[in-house]
């Protein structure tokens, strides 16, 4: 769905960074190109699709407001992801969200509430319990299709650190799955 908000005046720049622009170079196409992967990535990292949605919206809005000077950004996509991740980590938002959950709990009298999270499969459970930095690195690398260099740029760490996070994430995912995998026939 076109946004009709502006024109991507910045020339295509592929200086080793993340591929950035769409075919026509407009802000619209930039959003269209990146919004799905961004929201999905933030959902996996934060385990909260709504927080992911909000954070992605805020990040795109920030980018829109500075679209005229987007040339100043070395890598707009990395900037976008970084801003969105910071938004996801904003404790004020998390605290505010907890307050809303409270209201629901008070209204229902329910003693336990389990948030909808990506706990559908064994892999999802394991993935959701990875330390945040490992989860972030793995998501950006596997889901957002970034190179380790690009992941490092987004996370603000060295490539070596990203490699370590990825290594540990892989190990955890594989070993945990081995540990809990059960043949279908044995399941009650």
């Amino acid at each position, binding site marked *: *769905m076109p*946004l009709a908000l*502006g024109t991507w005046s910045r020339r295509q720049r592929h200086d080793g960074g993340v591929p950035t622009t769409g075919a026509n170079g407009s802000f619209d196409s930039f959003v*269209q190109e990146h*919004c799905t992967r961004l929201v*999905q990535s933030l959902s*996996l990292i934060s385990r*909260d*699709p*709504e927080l992911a949605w909000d954070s992605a*919206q*805020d990040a*795109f809005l920030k980018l*829109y*407001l500075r679209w*005229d000077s987007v040339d100043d950004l070395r890598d707009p996509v990395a900037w976008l992801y970084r*801003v969105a*991740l*910071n*938004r996801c*980590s*904003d*404790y*004020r938002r*998390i605290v505010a*969200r*907890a*307050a*809303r959950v*409270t209201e*629901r*709990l008070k*209204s*229902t*009298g*329910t*003693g336990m509430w*389990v*948030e*909808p*999270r990506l*706990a*559908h*499969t*064994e*892999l999802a*459970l*394991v*993935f959701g319990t990875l330390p*945040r*930095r490992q989860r972030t690195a793995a998501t950006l690398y*596997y889901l957002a299709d970034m190179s380790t260099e690009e992941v490092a740029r987004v996370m603000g760490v060295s490539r070596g*650190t990203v490699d370590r996070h990825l290594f540990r994430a892989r190990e955890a995912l*594989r070993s945990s799955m081995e*540990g*809990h995998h059960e*043949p*279908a026939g044995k*399941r*009650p």
Partner: protein
Amino acid sequence: MNQPASDPELRDAIRKLAPGVDTSAFCRELGEKCAKKKPGPKRGRRLRPLVIGVAVVVVLAGVSAGLVTGLGFLRGPQPVIVFTDATLSPGAAGRGSSGPVGSSADTLTGAKAELWAEIERIRQGVVSGEVIFDWPSEAAQGIIPSDPLLMLDYLEQSLLRPDVTAYLHDSAGDAVPLRTEISAMSGVRMLEFVSKDDALQRLKDDFADSPEILEGLQENPLPAGLEIWLTDYTQAASLADQLRDRPEVDEVHIATMDYADWVATLQRLTHPSDETSQLPGLETTRTTYVVAPTTDDPPLSSTTTIMGNVGPRLSWGQEAVLDGRTIKVEQPVEAPDETGAPSGFVLVYSLVTITNTGSEPLTCAAAQFGLDGNSSGSTGGFGGPAKTLAGHEVLDLVRLQPGESVKAAVRFCVKQGDHPVKVWLGTRSSTGRIQSSTSEWLASWQ
């Protein structure tokens, strides 16, 4: 479920975990926001440093206050730790920043190591289904994150931060003699010098999403600093006292976290899954069912008498008549031939039937449904490679035109055994956005 042995397989498996995104709704909502905020001249360039300083303090104080409140609640009358000490202090590591090389978990000692181990134990226990959080009763007070795993993330990050941070007078320059002296001290495991430029860059990173706050800075007001990790963190106060006497040093901060107390707190908030896990209040709530919608929610039709705890509850299979739709949910049953649930848990599914009785298109998603009960989490339609279940289509994200209906399966993961559960129905916003975890709930079946 096949184990992803290779990178491509792992990539595919992870991508299947990602939820669907309604791109049209996303663009529509963004378009509305952008239309209200036309790009204009940068106001920040007219700001003076004093104003900027005030803004920074206010923003950081807000972050700090939230943490203090939330953590204070968890720990009751105990002293409160402010995770943002580092961020509040110029030159210190910022929010979400990675620890420097060497600040790994392998080097933690004493109560720090115990807390790290406790965090890891809980993470692994949650994965295996052996540990259950008692968190929701705490979250019910409304001042801590509703996702306990997020708190583990923050605790983990705090463990990797320096034990002592010394801020230097500008006149001290790079303070090479002092750095050399400290490095030679016994008990100093690592020292990192943070220059004025590095400190400013960290601050910019922290405010990457609000760069206008810092745009007006004419000069770098932040001091250089020394970040010090000790082999024994309990010696931090002693070292801080020594450093305060040095002429190069302006101010010294130490980590004030009571790690042992946090170990006890985490133990208090978790219990093995084989303990009684009957949920307090769950049985009594079988006579209640629906939350009143907020003013942001679509209005309910007059045929739906649901407000607070006084409305009639819905039984399995009973139809809810809501504005523009009818929805019924069948009692969850175990998913045949579905593997992938962790030990002690089983995948179940409910058949849901949704009919668009309104005059506008209706977006329906599995993410609108949640399961409340002795579960490891409700899942809606996230993930899972299977597109059908027991002969039924698995609900993901569908768009119903007026008059159209869909009957599909929504999957959940619940603990094995006989225990009551509820299935809840969430709302979507007026922009068509699917709300999930923080939405109000329109109806429940039990």
